């Protein structure tokens, strides 16, 4: 932690200007991709850039570290300013040292294992001694939950794991700003969430970040400011909630309508099995279940079912299966409000019943405040006195009788 707080990236003096872009232009041949971008970003600010494909979002990001050479304009990051057309190789190199980029395709070095991927820029760009670089690399890999895979090579990792390593590689160089170029677009839906989780953490720690993304929900959640780009220009910018919920510009409204329509039907979700009950708590709370953020796992937890939006990878519902006192129990089933009424609850429960059968369950018990839903799936309400000693209270991790729900049973 010490290292992070020493770097320039953490929010020590929030409000100080960190990035300034003036009148940035970029052509690809005769096509003008950036038509004069002006942008200021403060230290500790998280900015999401949204817009359709081909509107210059990625090009803007790539001009900021000169992976694309801008034709006109000025870029300032921290204390270094580069003027397009007049930049020397040395200045470009300096500019690049002030930022770090996370790519859509991760771009880990395939000739190096996880540890050396993170160490490489520290050794060659920051001139660190090997042992110091290793210490820092391990520290950042711990932050993204990859410290157990130090000696694995990229080819053996899932997309989500590769992207987490890539984030650690960028963070470890302690840049002034992290540039995310569609960090989850190339990921299978099941890996999106773990990457977003890492970025959320960074956002909470107020790393200065610019995130080009197609995930509106995520942008709303983590960004302080949202920038909507169209046709090489910034069309609208403002606080995330404002731009995404009440856009002023017609074009922004149009874009949000189109991107909203694609998600949220039954075919656009996947169910992933895990043991991450704690990670599901915020979603359960959001969906109205009586949990507290630091509640322990349910007693006898077997497996969690996380329902993920295929497009954004966001957790939109879930439940868990437990076995305690010889009984198989379904605990805490929920689907977020915005996704209700689409048969997702039924889909989730059918999946869970199927899973219970694989565990050789003879019957399933659950407690419900709204028994009607479960009746449709074949559950019946049983009298309290016939019930085994299980809780009918979703907020108690220990099973007991005494709260105000119905106890329901399904014979398998």
């Amino acid at each position, binding site marked *: 932690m010490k290292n992070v707080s020493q770097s320039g990236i953490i929010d020590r003096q929030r409000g100080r200007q960190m990035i300034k872009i003036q009148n940035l232009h970029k052509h690809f041949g005769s096509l003008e991709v950036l038509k004069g971008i002006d942008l200021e970003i403060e230290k500790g600010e998280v900015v999401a850039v949204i817009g359709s494909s081909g509107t210059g979002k990625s090009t803007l990001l790539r001009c900021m570290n000169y992976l694309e050479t801008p034709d006109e304009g000025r870029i300032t990051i921290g204390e270094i300013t580069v003027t397009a057309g007049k930049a020397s190789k040395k200045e470009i190199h300096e500019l*690049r040292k002030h930022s770090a980029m996370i*790519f859509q395709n991760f*771009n880990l*070095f395939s*000739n190096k294992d996880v540890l050396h991927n993170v160490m*490489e*820029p520290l050794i*060659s*760009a920051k001139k660190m001694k090997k042992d110091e670089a290793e210490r820092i690399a391990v520290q950042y890999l711990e932050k993204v939950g990859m410290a157990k895979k130090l000696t694995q090579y990229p080819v053996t990792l899932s997309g989500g794991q590769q992207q987490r390593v890539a984030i650690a590689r960028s963070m470890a160089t302690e840049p002034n700003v992290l540039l995310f170029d569609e960090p989850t677009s190339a990921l299978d839906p099941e890996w999106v969430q773990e990457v977003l989780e890492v970025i959320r953490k960074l956002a909470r720690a107020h790393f200065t970040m610019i995130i080009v993304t197609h995930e509106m929900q995520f942008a709303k959640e983590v960004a302080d400011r949202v920038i909507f780009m169209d046709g090489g220009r910034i069309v609208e910018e403002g606080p995330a909630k404002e731009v995404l919920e009440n856009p002023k510009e017609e074009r922004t409204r149009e874009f949000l309508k189109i991107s909203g329509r694609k998600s949220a039907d039954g075919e656009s979700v996947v169910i992933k099995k895990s043991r991450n009950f704690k990670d599901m708590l915020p979603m359960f709370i959001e969906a109205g279940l009586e949990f507290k953020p630091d509640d322990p796992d349910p007693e006898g937890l077997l497996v969690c079912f996380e329902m993920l939006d295929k497009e954004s990878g966001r957790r939109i519902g879930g439940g868990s299966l437990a076995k305690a006192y010889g009984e198989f129990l379904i605990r805490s089933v929920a689907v977020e409000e915005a996704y209700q009424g689409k048969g997702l609850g039924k889909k989730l429960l059918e999946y869970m019943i199927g899973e219970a059968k694989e565990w050789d369950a003879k019957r399933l018990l659950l407690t419900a405040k709204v028994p009607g839903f479960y009746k449709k799936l074949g559950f019946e309400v049983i009298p309290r006195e016939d019930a085994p000693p299980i809780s009918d209270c979703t907020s108690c991790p220990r099973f007991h009788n005494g709260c105000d729900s119905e106890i329901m049973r399904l014979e398998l």
Partner: protein
Amino acid sequence: MSLEFSLNTLGAMLKVLPVTLSLTALSFAASLVLAIAIAVIDYFRVPVLRQVCAVYVSFFRGTPLIPQLFLLYFGIPTFIASLRDIPAFTVCVAGLTLNSAAYMKEVVRGSLLSVSEGQKEAALAHGMTPVQTMFRIVLPQATRVAVPSLFNNLVDIVKGTSMAFTIGVIEITATASLRASVTFNYFEAYMVLMLLYWVIILILERLEAVVEKRLAVGYNR
């Protein structure tokens, strides 16, 4: 068939085998260095040098090895007197180097291009210089891609050393043909010679398998 002659010839060839092997080793090492240098010049599009290299590659790929050796050994010293005392062995190394580097340059260039653009961008975007990116990211990965083809070039060089006898270097081919022409045992002499080349190359093939296996670390799931 004379077994005794065959064994004697083999003995004589083994005595000069170090000449063949050192010709091979020196030429291969030098041509690899030269090929990488030209490929890197090409890769970074260095003006002037790049065009000069292109002409060299085209000329040495477009002409046979024996005239190249003759030109170097007999031709050039007629103009430059100071080159007259250079031993045939050295000229032969130079000729083989210039000849095979012209081929190996394309192998090296192709393998450099095989490294994904994204990884180079990632290196640059994390503050590495283009030269660091080349030596620490691109070349190590390109090596793995280039090795099978480079072993092909190495095999060609081994066989190319047999041309050395045309400018008077006594190596295994020269030994075989001298003994054959004295005793008329052509079949035995050349058969033993060819078997010896074959054995050398079989050993190189085994070596290649080992090297490829080593380099594959990290690329297999």
